[in-house]
């Protein structure tokens, strides 16, 4: 099983662990990740405006590179996944954006949205299968109570992201069960942590983080798990009431698969 892999800017710097654990775990599960050559940063936020073309181009380049290889494009960072998946939908359904992006890029073959964008978690669920993940676990995380933090970017808007039920998701909880731990359900798991506003309005971000962490702590969690480097930073740096260890889901997966760092 082979995928075009888009790591993104933060996985090469502050979130190296998300990337390294993800790569090792994929290899252990028989999944080959071919990093896209010369990929560019996706821009981290999806350009909602209909007239923003330049800010969509790096995603289109990555999508086109995956199409050339005839591979699905696999993402790991929640923000990259959100941006690239939505730009892909624009290229597929919005004739004006498609025309202008292609006029600008002048690719050998115009890109029309043919690539399928798949998140690492979806790869585990839909391509490998959580049963097979479970079978590959050598070090089940027994006794661990883990709160799944979806945040905003993986699930919404659900018509485009189509990962899971946007209001009652289960993919992360099913993942937690597959690695032998117990998922903890709490109220704010699919509400935003205010990550990107943390730079401009730290107090607002702290309020969001405290609401999320308090909920997870009250439900008995010993760890909160995320796929997003910005959530990771924010849930860790801007918690003022409770401290709860924050981990990347790939770190837990690598631990459960018995991959020694």
């Amino acid at each position, binding site marked *: 099983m082979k995928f075009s892999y888009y790591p*993104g*800017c*933060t996985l090469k*710097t*502050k*979130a190296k662990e998300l990337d390294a654990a993800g790569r090792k775990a994929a290899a252990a599960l028989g999944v080959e990740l071919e990093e896209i050559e010369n990929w560019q*940063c996706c*821009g*981290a*936020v*999806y*350009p*909602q*405006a*209909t*007239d*923003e073309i330049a*800010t969509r181009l790096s995603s289109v380049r990555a999508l086109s590179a995956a199409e050339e290889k005839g591979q699905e494009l696999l993402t790991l*960072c929640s*923000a990259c996944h959100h941006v690239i998946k939505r730009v892909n939908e624009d290229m597929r359904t919005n004739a004006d954006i498609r025309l202008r992006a292609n006029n600008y890029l002048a690719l050998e073959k115009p890109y029309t949205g043919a690539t399928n964008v798949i998140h690492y978690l979806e790869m585990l669920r839909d391509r490998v299968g959580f049963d097979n993940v479970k079978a590959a676990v050598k070090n089940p995380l027994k006794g661990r109570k883990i709160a799944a933090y979806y*945040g*905003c*970017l993986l*699930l*919404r*808007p*659900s018509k485009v992201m189509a990962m899971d039920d*946007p209001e009652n998701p289960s993919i992360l909880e099913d993942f937690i069960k597959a690695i032998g731990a117990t998922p903890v359900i709490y109220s704010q798991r699919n*509400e*935003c942590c*205010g*990550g*990107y*506003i*943390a*730079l*401009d*309005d730290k107090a*607002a971000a702290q*309020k*969001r983080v405290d609401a999320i962490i308090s909920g997870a702590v009250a439900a008995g969690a010993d760890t909160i798990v995320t796929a997003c*480097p*910005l959530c*990771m*930073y924010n849930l*860790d*740096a801007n918690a003022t009431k409770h401290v709860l260890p924050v981990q990347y889901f790939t770190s837990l997966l690598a631990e459960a698969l018995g991959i020694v760092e």
Partner: protein
Amino acid sequence: MSGNICTEDILRISGVNPRKCMQCGKCSGTCPNFDEMEYHPHQFVSMVRKGQIDKLAASKSIYKCLSCFACVERCPRNVEPAKLIEAVRLAVIRQQGMDYMRPDDIPALLDDKLPQQAIVSAMRKYRK
């Protein structure tokens, strides 16, 4: 500084039709950053419909949206309020000298763990 932004600009940039709104208030009810806003998501919809762009453009509320798409997901009429907030903010920062944050502001805001993603987001959201 915002007096030259017209309603048509906002409708064109956002692609939103505020007349689809039935004023149920669900967008503001579900907004996780409601408390920080002077004008709330449902007010962006009604004020754009009424052409009150100047008030929105002059308000700090345009920098308070978290872009979490809770309002977009939960709107029963598919109005997509977040796109209106984004459009007003863009119409403001696309003007000469109206950047809300500049690269020179970043070093003072850095800490050891801050991910690149946060800086990239800020430069996409706050300046042109």
